[in-house]
């Protein structure tokens, strides 16, 4: 990732094709940045924003060429998420989840999953799904005539109200198998509830999904895994690691966006104090020192995220050969990325005001959005439990048991 860093690594070279996509993402980010403050305040569903992603070709960019997509590896699509996340972490969140699902179902290798990829590329669909479901359990699936009946609360889902298709994890009532299905959100059996009026990530369109006696066809059953009570295989449970890492990427993007905006503000507006020895705020040693500290911390997180992305790609590539120990090793690198990215993003997004000054708290600059976004995002699952998981692995060699959060 290091070509995109706040301190770009000149030794890292990307193919021209990828550079093209980075420019596309930058263009989208620039447009999103132009009115992010107003949109944040308005708290509407991000329909126009999704059209922007669609129009730019970003929705199919990560689908392999054989299915008609852009063929970008996930390492590269994660950079697109990062670039957009610097300007609008909500929209990046929606896009990041979309990429996770499209990458995850590539591991299914079923006719249905292949068709889903093809259809998505052809129709430029946006996908969404509840990532996990601790509170309400999963909906059940059971046979009904030629097809299946899905019923139950599907939990909280980012982007679902603006998605074209939903993935849903269900549990077979008879066999206790985990079954991944697709759902058309336009179906009358699908309803969204909850009011998403929160302090950050306000444009991420997160609502709860209820599936009320939804009938689906066999073509909509993407993958049937084993009995959930027997635990998940590494291949089956790779998706959750991908979600976890997406959080780290978003935290990183927020920290980078905060520093970019802060530095722009400092350069343009920040004045030295009455008794400073310099003429411009941007020359103030105390301000520069803290920028140095923040930039260094963000670089470290970026390098760790880069490592985690590579490790996850490798785990994906192993497929069925992946061992539980290998999964655990990758999981803990990702956990480290999540822990450090949370800390650094919170520190930077709160501390930046020391570098910009009192007037930067005016709502017109909306510099508080970075803190609001990372504070909201980082509560997805408690970072204290991530640290616990990491401590147990390091001190006692305990591998995390795959679940909705690890």
């Amino acid at each position: 990732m290091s070509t995109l860093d706040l301190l770009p690594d000149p030794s890292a070279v990307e193919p021209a094709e990828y550079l093209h996509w980075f420019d596309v993402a930058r263009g989208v980010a620039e447009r999103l940045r132009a009115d992010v403050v107003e949109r944040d305040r308005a708290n509407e569903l991000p329909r126009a924003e999704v059209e922007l992603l669609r129009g730019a070709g970003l929705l199919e960019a990560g689908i392999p060429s054989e299915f008609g997509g852009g063929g970008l590896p996930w390492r590269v699509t994660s950079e697109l998420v990062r670039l957009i996340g610097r300007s609008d972490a909500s929209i990046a969140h929606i896009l990041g989840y979309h990429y996770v699902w499209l990458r995850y179902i590539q591991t299914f290798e079923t006719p249905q999953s292949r068709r889903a990829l093809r259809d998505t590329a052809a129709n430029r669909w946006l996908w969404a799904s509840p990532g996990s479901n601790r509170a309400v359990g999963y909906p059940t699936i059971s046979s009904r005539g030629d097809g299946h009946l899905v019923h139950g609360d599907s939990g909280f889902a980012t982007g679902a109200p603006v998605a074209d298709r939903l993935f849903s994890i269900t549990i077979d009532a008879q066999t206790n198998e985990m079954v991944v299905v697709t759902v058309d959100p336009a179906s009358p059996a699908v309803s969204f509830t909850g009011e998403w009026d929160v302090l950050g990530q306000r444009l991420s369109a997160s609502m709860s999904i209820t599936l009320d006696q939804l009938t689906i066809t066999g073509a909509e059953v993407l993958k049937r895994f084993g009995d959930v009570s027997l635990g998940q295989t590494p291949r089956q449970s790779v998706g959750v690691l991908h979600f976890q890492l997406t959080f780290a990427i978003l935290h990183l993007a927020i920290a980078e966006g905060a520093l970019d905006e802060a530095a722009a503000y400092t350069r343009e507006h920040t004045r030295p104090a009455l008794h400073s020895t310099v003429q411009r705020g941007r020359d103030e040693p105390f301000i520069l020192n803290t920028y140095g500290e923040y930039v260094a911390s963000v670089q470290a997180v970026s390098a760790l995220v880069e490592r985690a992305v590579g490790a996850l790609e490798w785990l994906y590539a192993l497929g069925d050969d992946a061992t539980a120990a290998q999964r655990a090793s990758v999981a803990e690198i990702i956990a480290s990325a999540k822990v450090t990215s949370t800390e650094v993003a919170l520190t930077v997004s709160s501390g930046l005001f020391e570098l910009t000054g009192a007037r930067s708290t005016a709502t017109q600059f909306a510099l508080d959005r970075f803190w609001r976004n990372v504070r909201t995002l980082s509560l997805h699952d408690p970072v204290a439990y991530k640290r616990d998981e990491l401590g147990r692995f390091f001190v006692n060699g305990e591998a995390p048991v795959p679940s909705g959060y690890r």
Partner: protein
Amino acid sequence: MTQTQTEPTNAAATASAAATAAATATAAATTASAAEPRSVGRPNSDVVDYATLAARFRPVFARIADTAVERERGRVLPHEPVAWLREAGFGAVRIPVADGGSGASASQFFELLIELGEADSNLPQLLRAHFGMVEERLNDLDSPVRDRWLRAVVDGAIIGNAVTEIGSGALGATATTVSGDDENGWFISGTKHYSTGAIFADYIAVGVADDRGERAFALVSARDAGVDLVDDWAGFGQRMTGSGTTVLERVPVNPDDIFWYADRAPNYMIAFYQTVLLASLAGIGRAVVRDGIEFVRRRSRVFSHGSGATAREDPLVQQVIGQLSGASFAADSVVQAAAAQFDRANGARDADGLADAALFDELEITVSRAHGTVVDTVLAASTRLFEVGGASSVDAAKTLDRHWRNARTISVHNPGIYKTRDVGDHLLNGSAPAYGWVVGVKK
């Protein structure tokens, strides 16, 4: 406060009228009162015990706390809370009992301010100019002007400020002018921004300069037709401090009410203004603990990884609450330690109320030493607050983020980075403190 009002919503107007009458009274009135016993030229020391003082104001603080979230949601300016405080005599809390106030010592006053800040951190900040102007008068040598203003405050007057200018040239210059002569009167014209509290006030302390560039604070009536108060403050925090724009157009001013910087004796006012902000932050620290506890107690849902049966039994949740509590204790302790120095400085004055300037240097350094801890602990706590539990803490309706937004806004009011350096310079080289963090210049 001698008046009693049963209708809080009318209290403000009535009290204001009384205050205006008092403040515009001529020297005759102040001469008449010269025989009364009162403290002379020095801020009073401790005359009442804290429990008694607090008991008087806590019911008001409780009402303010109960309505704080409602105001935050609708951005309702706290005219009512200001009226309640006025009615309870809080504006005169620092004025000696003999002069009609509550006689709180400086440290008692700051402790009350922490309590008020816990209830709603907008309030101590919007009253900052008020308490600053009262403190300045308490620091004055005995004079008719001093008496007149203390009486006005005892009668309910509230003072706001209008100091900051934007883009008006060199640092430290003032474009708002006072001009005129004794025959035709003196008038003030200019535009001010971030006029904290002015919108709630009966009088406004305006930073002015005369045609020679001599600078002063002038107290003028907020009701004058030449004063236009605009509620255009749009910061993400401390949203209800009414820190908007003030346009003054030939606003008349009593020349006695122009307080020239050049006439000022050494004083601790810069430190005082700063400590008001630190007390507001400490109040936020307490509110964070309060809201964290309440949030956990109400939570039924436990995160699946949690090690306790309920959220309140989860050791990691308990740890977060313990951390918040420790942070609040630190902020309280540091503010209290700084506040106690005001009492000590006042106790060291001579009979005329004068003191060695070194004492004020020391106080200024003390408050700068306090700054970093209060800011860091309260800001960190207001961020960590959310780690007590689930994602529902981010519901906009709960406005739990107001603590961070408010703390962040208060804490950048003055640049902490310079304060730390200033302390170091003083300790290493014996340099006098920089002052000038807030308003005015060092003499």
